[in-house]
């Protein structure tokens, strides 16, 4: 019985390992923050054209991606919307080198048929506000901005806004999708996400600058990291602030 258990387990493990090796050896796998979707799709296209190497992209909340990598998901490159996720991987010895390659800031995207005209309006009753969950980089930045805004609008501003929050989404793209659908009135997103709807600026002194860091996880990933670092104009084209 025990021997059979051992043999079966071995066979199972070997089968799984074989499946694990199924990812295309000619492909570079890039895990990138959801907010990087548009520029990274462009960069990947350009990269494929220039080098002939295929790029596989996986966009999600940087936190989710970091957890996936920690738990053994295969990635050659990780591009995070905050330095913290990279730092966690560095402490675990998964990442050795990393580079800040872009910056972004927050805006409040508003749906087309809402009567919000200023940040102060966000505290008005009966609004439907969507934020990203505090575990994600954008969610963490949102909390920081809201607390900063307390200094401008008074102590209860944060509580009033949070009372209007109807959903905490997994990543910035799903938060913004609720605005596109017209299901929510306002959402805290990156400036680069809010391209299809109106948005309200957050004053510089209360805003947060998001720093994007990119790290190769395998030696093969370095090629793509170098490519991103030397083509920052693509990111600028999508509204990112160049580092």
């Amino acid at each position: 019985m025990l021997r059979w258990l051992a043999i079966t387990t071995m066979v199972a493990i070997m089968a799984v390992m074989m499946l694990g090796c199924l990812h295309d050896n000619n492909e570079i796998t890039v895990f990138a923050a959801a907010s990087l979707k548009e520029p990274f799709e462009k960069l990947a296209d350009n990269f494929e054209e220039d080098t002939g190497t295929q790029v596989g992209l996986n966009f999600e909340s940087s936190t989710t991606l970091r957890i996936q990598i920690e738990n053994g998901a295969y990635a050659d490159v990780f591009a995070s919307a905050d330095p913290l996720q990279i730092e966690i991987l560095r402490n675990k010895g998964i990442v050795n080198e990393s580079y800040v390659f872009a910056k972004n800031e927050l805006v409040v995207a508003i749906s087309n048929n809402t009567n919000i005209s200023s940040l102060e309006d966000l505290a008005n009753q009966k609004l439907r506000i969507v934020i990203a969950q505090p575990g994600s980089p954008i969610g963490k930045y949102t909390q920081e901005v809201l607390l900063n805004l307390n200094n401008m609008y008074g102590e209860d501003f944060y509580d009033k806004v949070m009372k209007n929050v109807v959903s905490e989404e997994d990543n910035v793209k799903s938060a913004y999708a609720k605005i596109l659908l017209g299901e929510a009135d306002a959402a805290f997103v990156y400036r680069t996400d809010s391209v299809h709807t109106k948005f309200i600026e957050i004053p510089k002194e209360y805003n947060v600058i998001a720093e994007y860091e990119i790290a190769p996880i395998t030696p093969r990933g370095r090629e793509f990291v170098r490519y991103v670092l030397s083509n920052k104009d693509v990111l600028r084209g999508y509204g990112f602030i160049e580092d």
Partner: protein
Amino acid sequence: MASLRIEIWKIVIFASFLFYICYITLPILSVFVRVGSDFITQLSNPVVVSAIKLSIITSSVTALVAIVVGTPVAYALARWRFRYKHALETLIELPIVLPPAVAGVALLMAFGRNGLVGSYAPMDIAFTTLAVIMAQSFVATPFYVRSMKSAFDNLDTKIEGVARTLGASEFRTFVSITLPLTVPSFVGGLVMCWARALGEFGATLMFAGNFIGRTQTMPLAIYSALQTDLQSALSLSVILIILSFTILVFVKIFGRRVGAFV
């Protein structure tokens, strides 16, 4: 030579069996191993508590609605004859096979702010607890309807005929003869419906959003907690595993016992 072939055949079956059992047991066991002693402390975590509460309430309401609405529907499908019955029956069963994400989008398109119905509604439905119940009802009610329909189908109509000839009204016959005889299917269908509602994730996430205490049911809380607090995700998983297991055991035991004397 022939006996050797049989031996190999047996080994293949045995190996597949063992492999499959390991494949199911290992992940579930891993959750228990990883959660460790933290499970008890997590039970007082407010996020965990509110997710459990919300899940129990919404899935129970869904089950009640299924009884009230689903029973007549199942009865009509089984007993009445009308045009397009098979087409309608297929339509009613569609949510069983429909990907929940599609159900979520569909509910948004119908009952969202700009939805076909939602734009005329006096209040916003999406992002409310009502939306959670609607999402669960959409995907889970068919399990109850299907079970009750087959119960009504398989019931010997002669027994009902006897009650009628003894002077019982059609309604009286239904309540005191037909319904009691469907109890096994009723319990089985209801429990499956409840379990499916309890596990609902995709449609809820899209239509009701994710907010603690209002729309964040246990599966959504697990999803969110993976980003921040693995321990509470594990604890909620343990609770759902235990609940699911209990449901299954209950259905099996109940089904066997009732089956013995019906």
